[in-house]
């Protein structure tokens, strides 16, 4: 009977632990949303931020976050696509491949603050680009590359070899087989990975503090010429993102409503991440159904 009792106690403890983890998440989400959502209004989402007075919004920061995310994806997707294709299709089994894999693993485990400092050193200081959206996007690319590469490699690998053999047997080149047959079939997995990665990039701050900068310059939403310094599209302007904004007002903010602004911003950030998470699953499932004709 003793072992039975032990068994029951242990299983109950395991259940309690799992329940606690669920409670922690529920508490986190509840806390952020309850304290933050009341501050969200159209004014909050669109107005420029204030440094010394209350009533500031997060309009510029929100735009910067989205713009930076798009730029990062534009830079990092092609590179990681090429790298993923190499690892799953071309990589020979030798020392070089092993080194490459290790390099990617190391890159993915580097602290993001170190990646940001490297971006600071190389782009902001050495290349004299200053705190700019472009430096930030490249730093985020370094941060995003290993995850995206691994995701693309795994998605490509999960396509059965039969497809590759069929393509080659039809006289297609290996490259055409990969791009026209394997890649479309792996697409749902890849898209899911890209969207999940986008959520991570959207919330990243440590890599951006010293690359994209901590100041949101006034931008003029009527001017879309990318070479004008007040244009929202300008690549060389400093751009504080939403995540950096939260960090900054919490460590050195002096506006009277700092707590409210950071609660509201956190809620916006969380809602964005939730949207990314759910849409990743939704898009992945839908694409899979469309491309494979399964229900």
């Amino acid at each position: 009977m003793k072992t039975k009792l032990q068994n029951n106690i242990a299983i109950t403890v395991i259940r309690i632990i799992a329940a606690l983890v669920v409670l922690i998440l529920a508490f986190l989400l509840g806390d952020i949303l309850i304290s933050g959502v009341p501050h969200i209004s159209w004014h909050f989402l669109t107005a420029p931020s204030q440094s010394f007075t209350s009533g500031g919004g997060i309009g510029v920061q929100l735009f910067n976050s989205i713009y930076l995310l798009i730029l990062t994806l534009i830079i990092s997707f092609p590179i990681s696509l090429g790298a993923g294709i190499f690892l799953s299709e071309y990589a020979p089994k030798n020392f070089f491949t092993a080194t490459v894999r290790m390099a990617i693993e190391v890159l993915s485990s580097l602290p993001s603050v170190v990646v940001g400092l490297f971006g600071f050193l190389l782009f902001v200081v050495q290349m004299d680009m200053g705190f700019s959206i472009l430096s930030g996007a490249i730093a985020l690319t370094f941060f995003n590359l290993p995850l995206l590469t691994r995701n693309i490699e795994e998605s490509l690998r999960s396509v059965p070899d039969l497809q590759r053999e069929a393509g080659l047997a039809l006289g297609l080149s290996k490259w055409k087989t990969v791009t026209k047959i394997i890649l479309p079939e792996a697409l749902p997995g890849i898209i899911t990975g890209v969207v999940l990665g986008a959520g991570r990039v959207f919330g990243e701050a440590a890599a951006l503090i010293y690359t994209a900068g901590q100041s949101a310059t006034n931008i003029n939403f009527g001017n879309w010429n990318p070479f004008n310094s007040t244009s929202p599209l300008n690549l060389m302007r400093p751009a504080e993102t939403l995540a950096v904004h939260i960090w900054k007002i919490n460590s050195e903010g002096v506006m009277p409503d700092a707590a409210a602004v950071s609660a509201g911003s956190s809620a916006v950030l969380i809602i964005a991440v939730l949207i990314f998470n759910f849409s990743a699953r939704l898009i992945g499932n839908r694409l899979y159904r469309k491309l494979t004709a399964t229900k």
Partner: protein
Amino acid sequence: MDPIKNKIQSTSKETRQDIIGKILSYSCIALIVIVVLSIFAFVASKGLATFIVNKASISDFLFGTNWNPIATDKAGNPLLGALPMITGSFGVTILAVIFAAPFAIGTALYMTEVASKKGEKLLQSVIELLVGIPSVVYGFIGLSVVVPFVRIHFGGSGYGILSGAFVLFVMVLPTVTSMTVDSLRAVPRYYKEASLALGATKWQTIYKVLLRSATSGILTAIIFGMARAFGEALAVQMVIGNAAIMPKGLLAPASTLTSVLTMGIGNTVMGTVGNNALWSLALMLLLMSLIFNIIVRFIGRKGRM
């Protein structure tokens, strides 16, 4: 010229396509390797300058307890003792992992052994969402919930290693859990079936068979969690109090390698001793992440035998 001979001997359209494809994918991978190498080269060259250009001694840096790069001691050497930060970093990391490991293993066991399909799916989403929450949001919650909680229930100002560890606990929990789940799933099915067939209870099977054969995987998961905790910057920086002095306990303000870096780089001038010393801290972070990687590889190799 014979047209047929010509056609056979020249490279075909397909071969040319393949060459282009190879060049493209090789250059992408080369780019990634170059990025990794240059990160190491740049940070190392900056970080070593403290010791080569500014002539600071490595042992003073590692074991000195006085961090004040602007001031110099009687011999004229800058005060660059990084031990307070090193202690802080290891303190929060180890404490966070001690908190997180039982929770992670328990949750992983629930997901693989106890839960129904529905419960497993729920926990899976919970873990994914926990990963997705940005670190500044964790920091903000730390500031608005954990710090007051620690202040009221444990005393002190609330800023300190304990608060940092609480925040990191939640941050590393999903990493450790999902990797533990993977390693528990990798245990061959027949191990479990054999144990159950011998009349062992579920708990005996978990304790005597599953956990033992998944040990190396679980250790890897914990090391990965440590690596993540060690490198986390903003969330810790917001709650730890940022005092570059030897921590006097878990409740006193302290600092970590990452927190000093994030606060300091913007306030020092490139090329000065203070700035170089910060780069030495960055180099330490880099080396630590490399060491964590090597440990993981080592455990993996041992586990396979």
